[in-house]
């Protein structure tokens, strides 16, 4: 049962998936973006899958993945303290999508079969555009607006791709890794 979801997608779209894995029981298909809409429609309508819920739609900026600076909390005192050891993994994760800064992540759920599937669509920084799923799920509308607002990823064919959480005057996309966490752009009052 476990591998069947990935297999079903791969069987129907042999060229769509660039890779796939099951990590901690979460089945994931990494998808080429050209086929997103077709795969999503297939997921929704295929009787064996019937993924009628688009549970979540988000994105990840992988630009600093694995490059987090090691803690230098005691560097000033000259005492070297190495960070805690990482908890090892028996069944390691294959890693983020290669050579792509962003990944749009979709979580689907089937009410009937009670199974979940994750689709990951890697995107290059030079061409941040992916098809909208608003024609299939009404809920995609706001979720895609949020991804645009937070990451600056455009959705082709979206009816109203405007900022949703931030205000129109806001410049930049705050959840990108290069946006400083406390760079404020107040509408009134001082910049503090």
């Amino acid at each position, binding site marked *: 049962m476990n591998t069947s979801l990935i297999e079903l997608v791969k069987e129907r779209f042999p060229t769509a998936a660039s890779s796939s894995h099951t990590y901690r029981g979460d089945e994931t298909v990494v998808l080429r973006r050209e086929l997103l809409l077709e795969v999503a429609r297939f997921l929704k309508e295929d009787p064996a899958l019937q993924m009628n819920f688009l549970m979540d739609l988000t994105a990840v900026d992988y630009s600093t993945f694995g490059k987090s600076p090691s803690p230098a909390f005691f560097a000033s005192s000259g005492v070297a303290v190495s960070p805690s050891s990482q908890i090892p993994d028996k069944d390691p994760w294959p890693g983020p999508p290669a050579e792509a800064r962003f990944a749009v992540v979709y979580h689907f759920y089937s009410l009937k079969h009670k199974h979940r599937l994750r689709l990951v669509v890697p995107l290059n920084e030079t061409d941040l555009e992916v098809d909208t799923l608003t024609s299939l799920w009404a809920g995609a509308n706001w979720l895609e607006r949020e991804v645009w607002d937070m990451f600056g990823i455009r959705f082709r064919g979206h009816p109203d791709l405007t900022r949703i959480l*931030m205000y129109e005057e806001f410049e930049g996309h705050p959840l990108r890794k290069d*946006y400083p966490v406390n760079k404020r752009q107040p*509408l*009134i009052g001082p910049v503090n």
Partner: protein
Amino acid sequence: MFDSFLTSRLDAALGWARKYSIFQYPFVTACCGMEYMATACAHYDIDRFGAGLPRFSPRQADVLFVVGTISHKLAPALKRIHDQMAEPKWVVAFGVCTCTGGFYDNYATVMGIDTFMPVDVYIPGCPPRPEMVLDGLMKLQNKIQDQHTTGRRAAAESRPDNLEL
């Protein structure tokens, strides 16, 4: 001599009347609203202090309770509500987010509402317990009692102008 006696007595009487008939405008945005509800309801009963009746129009209120985190997107609305209130008016910063921004030190939140409007009483806590809110309210009442007849502040409130941030 007699004149000043009269005015100071009048001040005291006015202050006394004002402090026990607070009409508050709760500007409730976030988590602190839950504790605000708890304070306002039967268990802690803010009505014992003469502040039981929230007015949901700024023009009819004289104390603005700013309850919960204020984001940069919301700040202009809050400022406008404050401007709409008639003098004399007082502002209570309820919860640590309104006092200093709390642990939301990021691009979205205002680091304390006193950066763009005056504040009379700060009630820290995340969220403050109802007892603390009542304590803050009593502090505000003392302040109202001591205020000049015109309702204006004796001295400029909020942080000093030359404070470098």
